[in-house]
Each structure stands twice: as C-alpha cells, then as structure tokens.
C-alpha cells in the first residue's frame, strides 16, 4: 500500500481497481495500524465509502477529473461540514463544523474521498504532535520518536501508507518539519496561494495550507486542486495559477541555487549536513549552479516569529469563549467565570502559554516593545530573502537541525522545542514558498532537505524536487511496519 497518487489515478482510469476497492484497502490499513500510530483523530469510513461510490459513478459516466476517486486525509483543522473538526483540542472536542473550508470544498468538487481527519498539535501549536488532546502520534520509522508537528498525523499517515496524500497547514514549519521527520514530500505555498477560509486560524499573517504526498509529482497534482483565488479569504492571492504538473519537466540545468551559510552553522547535526551535501552533489550533476549566500538575520527569526505568532494567536483564540460552540464549563456563576473556566478547561498547556505571551505582548505599554519591534524585524528578514533572490533562483538547506527526537525529550522545555523551527519559520515571516523532500537517513530516521522559492514560484520548487526524485529513491523508501 505504498501507491502514489499518480499510480492510484492510473489504476482507477484503467479499471485495475475501483474507488470503493482502494478506499476499503486504506480503511483496512488504518484499522490495522492507527491504534499504534494514532495518526487519525476521526476515521470517516462510512462517508468515505459513500464518496467512493459516487466517484465510481461519476467515472462510469465518463466525467472523471484528475483526482476523482482518490482517497485523502485532511488535517483536523480544516472545517468539514457535518464532521467533527477538533483542532486537536478539548475545547472543540464536540465541534461539528457547520460548513466546509474552501480547501475541503475544492477537494470534494474534485471527487476525492476523505478517509478521516488527522491528528495535530492543538491549534497547530507545536513541533512534535505531543500537544494534542488526542495523544501523541508515533513516527512510523521508529514508534518511540515524534512525527514532527504540527501536521504530524498527516505526515505519519502518508509515510505509513494509511493515506496516499494528506492536507496540512504551515504557520512556522508545520508541513515541512513533519514531512522531513517522516520522510515524505510536503510543500508550503506562498502566503495567500491557498485559501484560509474554514482553516481554523492560529496566526493569520503566517498560516498557509498545503499538501503532503510521496513525491513532488503527487504534490503538484494536489496543489493544483488547492491553489485558487478565494473571495472569502481577504488575503487570498489573485495571481494566476500555473499548471504545476506540466511544469515538472523543466529540469534544473543552469539553475542557480543558494546555500545560506547560516543554515549550515552551529546547531546543525553534522550527519544531517553530510546527507544534505550528498544531495547537493546530485543537483550539481544535474547541472545546477551552487553558490553560498547569506541570510544575516536568520538568528532573529525565532524571537520575531514567536512574538508575531503568539500575539496573533491570542487574538484569534479569543473566539473560543464557551458561548456559541465548543466546550462550556459546568455551572458558571457569571459571564466572566464562564469565559475563564471554559477556556481554562478547554485549552492545553502550550496553547495557554502562547495565549498568555501574546496577551502580554499586545497589552498596554508593551505593544511597541514586542509586536511593533517584531514587525520591523520581520521586514528585515523578508529583505534578506529578497536580496538573496537577486542572485539565485532557489535557496536550499536542511529542513531541521536534528532528525525526529524521542517522544517526551523536549516537552519540559518549550524554548528548546521552538529552536527546532530555525530553518522553517523565516519563510512564514517572509511569506515565501518552501518544500521538504527526503534525501537520506540518520540513525534510521529520515532527513529532509528544504527548497525555498521566490514568491509564487511553487512550480520552480516542484520541478527542482521532481528532478532530484528522478535520480534518487529516498522518497520511495517505506518504514517497516509489522505486517
């Protein structure tokens, strides 16, 4: 069950199997492996089979689209009409979304089959998936290790073959880091490329949805369905969407790729550096021109990011008040008690920490010192990238400084967890697209390489990743799950 999306599309087109049959296969595999992996918060088997039957009917009538009948898993923060959308939080444990996110609507219109909703760090706040009300997710390559986060369930589900593809969201690395930790391919598009409507907000100026799959080729197909202007999202981009699959063959001959020296400095596991060097050699052989560049404000990206993200999260999460939906405390004595206890009981420790820091940073007398300052540094970080893109077409580096760590290893120290995001968060601050693809192993755990593109150059990223995947087989490796 390690079929790619493209292979499933072919099998459905040639009649090798029906959508109902392939959906049943995945549901069986989920039933077998999810108890150990905990990738899914909800498995929507009945709905999946209904959608699969419908897809088979559409195909029989000769009306199949590119993804008709393909099973997919969705991160449990995309609202799904009639299906629980928990965001990994107790406060939304009873929340049946009353509408579909635009991303879900687009996949439904494309005829895909939803297998279920995947586990995640609560409200996408975390880098290990340990901050979920529904328990941590196991990394399919080593069950004692984390899958990364926040979209850990999606990445682990694809790696374990419980779904051929999954959606995720990325606010500071939440697609790229779990993709790296689980050995799959994931892309975070340019800010505004994929609609945020119905994607429960964490930090609105950073959040962006994107796909996970087994290859860049599959990601191209999925992103085609996701990327679209949406009038319901006020920051959605009106830029035309190119044909990503058609662009895959453009190759990388003559492409200028920059290596930021700050991404290869202290703090990077030297074995990861070695694996990345080998991948760079492959790209050189394919005709890429590699040069060193500098992103001098890289070190500032972590403090800047956490101020922006926490300030925006404290504001966004004020909507969870126990009044209109979600958890409400028992017997509130007054309105303030209702707010405080509903929120206190509903949110987990990390979400509370972030709400508190964000509230502090936005409170009277501190706004300029924290939020305004962070926004100024944010521009400096963006400017670094813009000058770099004057001389290179793509930027390349490791996705993470370490491979997947053990469950529990960093839970006592939030700051050490935040430092994991050093190579990924600056892209969200700048709004740039980035992707992670597997390029090797350290200690039996996957290593991810990050490619960073200029604004709206998702096609260039996918093409470069595809070229590499044509001459390597890291993306074809699968974890040895028992049976």
């Amino acid at each position, binding site marked *: 069950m390690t079929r790619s999306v493209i292979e499933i599309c072919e099998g459905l087109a040639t009649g090798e199997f029906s959508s109902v049959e392939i959906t049943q296969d995945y549901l069986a595999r989920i039933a077998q492996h999810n108890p150990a992996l905990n990738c899914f918060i909800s498995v929507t088997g009945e709905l999946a089979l209904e959608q699969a039957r419908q897809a088979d009917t559409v195909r029989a009538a000769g009306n199949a689209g590119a993804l008709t009948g393909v099973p997919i898993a969705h991160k449990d923060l995309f609202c799904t009409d009639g299906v629980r959308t928990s965001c990994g939080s107790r406060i939304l444990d009873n929340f049946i979304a*009353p509408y579909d996110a635009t991303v879900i609507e687009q996949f439904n219109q494309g005829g895909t089959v939803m297998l279920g909703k995947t586990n995640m760090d609560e409200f996408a706040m975390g880098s290990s998936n340990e901050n979920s009300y529904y328990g941590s997710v196991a990394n399919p390559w080593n069950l004692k290790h984390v899958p990364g986060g926040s979209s850990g369930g999606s990445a682990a589900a694809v790696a374990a073959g419980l779904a051929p593809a999954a959606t995720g969201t990325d606010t500071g690395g939440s697609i790229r880091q779990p993709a790296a930790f689980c050995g799959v391919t994931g892309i975070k598009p340019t800010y505004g490329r994929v609609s945020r409507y119905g994607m429960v907000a964490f930090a609105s100026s950073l959040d962006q949805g994107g796909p996970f799959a087994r290859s860049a080729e599959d990601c191209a197909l999925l992103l085609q369905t996701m990327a679209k202007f949406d009038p319901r999202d006020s920051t959605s981009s009106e830029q035309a969407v190119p044909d990503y699959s058609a662009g895959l063959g453009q190759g990388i001959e003559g492409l200028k790729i920059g290596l930021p020296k700050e991404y290869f400095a202290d703090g990077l596991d030297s074995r990861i550096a070695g694996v990345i060097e080998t991948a760079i050699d492959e790209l050189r052989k394919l005709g890429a021109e590699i040069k060193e560049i500098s992103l001098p404000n890289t070190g500032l990206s972590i403090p800047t990011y956490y101020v922006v993200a926490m300030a925006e999260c404290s504001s966004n999460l004020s909507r969870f008040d126990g009044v209109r939906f979600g958890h409400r405390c028992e017997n509130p004595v007054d309105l303030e008690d209702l707010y405080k206890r509903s929120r*206190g009981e509903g949110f987990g420790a990390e979400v509370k920490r972030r709400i508190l*820091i964000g509230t502090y940073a936005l409170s009277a007398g501190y706004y300029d010192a924290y939020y305004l300052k962070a926004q100024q540094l*944010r521009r400096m970080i963006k400017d670094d990238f813009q000058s770099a893109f004057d001389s290179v077409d793509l930027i390349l580096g490791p996705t993470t400084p370490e491979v997947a760590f053990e469950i529990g290893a960093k839970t006592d120290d939030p700051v050490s967890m935040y430092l994991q995001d050093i190579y990924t968060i600056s892209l969200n601050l700048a709004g740039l697209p980035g992707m992670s693809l597997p390029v090797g192993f350290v200690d039996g755990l996957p290593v991810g390489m990050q490619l960073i593109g200029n604004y709206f150059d998702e096609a260039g990223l996918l093409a470069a990743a595809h070229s590499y995947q044509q001459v390597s087989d890291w993306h074809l490796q699968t974890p040895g799950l028992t049976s």
Partner: protein
Amino acid sequence: MTLKSEDIRNIAHLARLHIDEDAIDDYVDDLSNILSLVDQMNQVDSSSVAPLSNPLDATQRLRADEVTETNQRDKFQQIAPDVADGFYRVPKVIE
C-alpha cells in the same frame, strides 16, 4: 525579562483564562524563559524600519457591502452549548 506570579494572574485575567493556582510557578518559569528568548530582538536597531504586517505587503481587499450569506441560525445553534428561542443563553449579565 522576569515575570512574577502577580503578572501571570494579571495576564491570565486579561486573556480571560483560568489558571490553576498551583500551576502559576510553572507559568512564571516558562513565560520568563520565552521572554528571554524574545528579548534577543533588542540586539538589533530597527528604529528606521517600517513594520511589516502582511508578508506580501498587501492591503485588505474590500468588497461591495452586499448580503452574500444566508441565515443559517438553526444550523449554527445545533452546536451551541445552550440556546433558547433562537438566542444563545449565558449567565445573567445585568441585574
């Protein structure tokens, strides 16, 4: 930057977030550590830099002021914790 337990209580009140008394000390430590990390921002003079709020420097798109949503009150109230006669019920606010 070091916070005191009283700061945590104040911030928690501003955030309308109940924090257990016996967890306050942990929050003092965790939040103080996070603020020390954040204080690294002050290593750089950015006084002449214009703040960036939208990463693409875009402004909010406006649309015509027209009704585009239908009334779905009944559907929305199905998931509410407490409703009556089409209203959301909360503890008495005004005596």
